């Protein structure tokens, strides 16, 4: 890793997206790992299954991401020993926030999205910054292609406006198939315009029956 002075981070590029529906959650991330103008590998997973109904996707510095994933998996294992059950998605969301804020002065350079089903079986997505500020939302995107994708999701998801009061649940009324198609479309478009996004997109769909995985080819240039 090229260390100029004492700069200890690197941005490996890539984009991740998550969409929450009434009874499902779609999480996706591309599989390209880059450094500068080089591609290190076309086949790298940025998604990690943290619990039965809870999946995390992240972009940023993959070295820190690996460390963060291991850290969370270890804490989850301890939780399971102590409580004899898996962590719920909202519980994992708070754990991730605390873990990130713990390193407030030497942060994990990761931009995370947590997706899954809450205890009522409804889709939930939590979005984070690098130091742990978080919020439950209906959909989110992070990474080099996020600026290209979010405006399209704002427009296409037909979610109730987050500006309303009383706050309406932000999940999209779209069906699972429509949401997955939309995710494929936004990744295809982001691949055209973002040099760091491409190769393949790994799409995970979490619903009552479990977790389903799909890989879609993207442009490799």
């Amino acid at each position, binding site marked *: 890793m090229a260390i100029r002075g004492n700069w200890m981070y690197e941005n490996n590029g890539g984009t991740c997206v998550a969409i929450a529906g009434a009874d499902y959650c779609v999480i996706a991330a591309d599989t390209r790992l880059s450094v500068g103008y080089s591609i290190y590998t076309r086949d790298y997973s940025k998604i990690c299954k943290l619990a039965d109904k809870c999946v995390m996707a992240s972009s940023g510095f993959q070295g820190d991401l690996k460390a963060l994933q291991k850290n969370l998996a270890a804490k989850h294992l301890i939780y399971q020993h102590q409580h004899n059950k898996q962590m719920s998605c909202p519980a994992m969301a708070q754990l991730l926030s605390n873990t990130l*804020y713990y390193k*407030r*002065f030497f942060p994990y350079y990761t931009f995370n999205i947590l997706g899954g089903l809450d205890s009522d079986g409804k889709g939930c997505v939590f979005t984070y910054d690098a*130091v742990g*500020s978080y*919020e439950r939302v209906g959909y989110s995107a992070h990474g080099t292609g996020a*600026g290209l994708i979010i405006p399209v999701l704002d427009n296409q998801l037909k979610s109730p406006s987050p*500006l309303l*009061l009383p706050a309406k649940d932000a999940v999209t009324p779209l069906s699972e198939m429509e949401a997955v198609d939309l995710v494929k479309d936004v990744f295809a478009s982001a691949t055209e315009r973002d040099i760091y996004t491409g190769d393949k997109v790994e799409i995970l769909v979490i619903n009552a029956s479990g977790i389903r995985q799909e890989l879609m080819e993207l442009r490799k240039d």
Partner: protein
Amino acid sequence: MDIDLSAPHSMGTTIIGVTYNGGVVLGADSRTSTGMYVANRASDKITQLTDNVYICRSGSAADSQVISDYVRYFLHQHTIQLGQPATVKVAANLVRLLSYQNKNMLQMGVIVGGWDKYEGGQIYSVPLGGTILKQPFAIGGSGSAYLYGFFDQAWKEGMSKDEAEKLVVKAVSLAIARDGASGGVVRTVTINADGVTKNFYTGDSLPLWHEELEPHNSLLDILSASSSPEPMST
């Protein structure tokens, strides 16, 4: 991307707290920016600490969220031990203690407001550094720079609830018009002896200020209305 999407979220913001005859009105915009990208256009910066005390947050989103969580936790214990609702002064001082003792590491400016049976409606300002200052009204965030003169002229003692709310909404909308880091909707929280009321005002319901354009769904509306091919000419 020219803009840095990876900066930590900071709320370039406008936050306001105003006392009136009987309670307080807290107001804020809804924009959270990371650098020049709007990370959240619909944030709720007015967070609950107890049933009767709320806090307006500005600065680093993570720092102010974590401090609010700690203070909510301490106040919850305090309420149990005290046997009655916590006072606004205690809530504000807990925020101040955490802010001052960690001043080297935190970056947040907040306004704590609420109502209790001893002192009625109160507003406490806790800016960067951890000063605590009780004020009849307080403004904070990047957008507040544009409001000092406005409040000098428009503020008066002993307003009614409606006057206070109108003042807060007008002020936030003026700041949104001039401050790029403030935007979205105006959220208000009114706290008094009867409880808490939350409101929000969408961008198109706010008055237009100097040289602002009317909100339109599409520029084509302007085109068809005027016969001129120049959409922006009056």
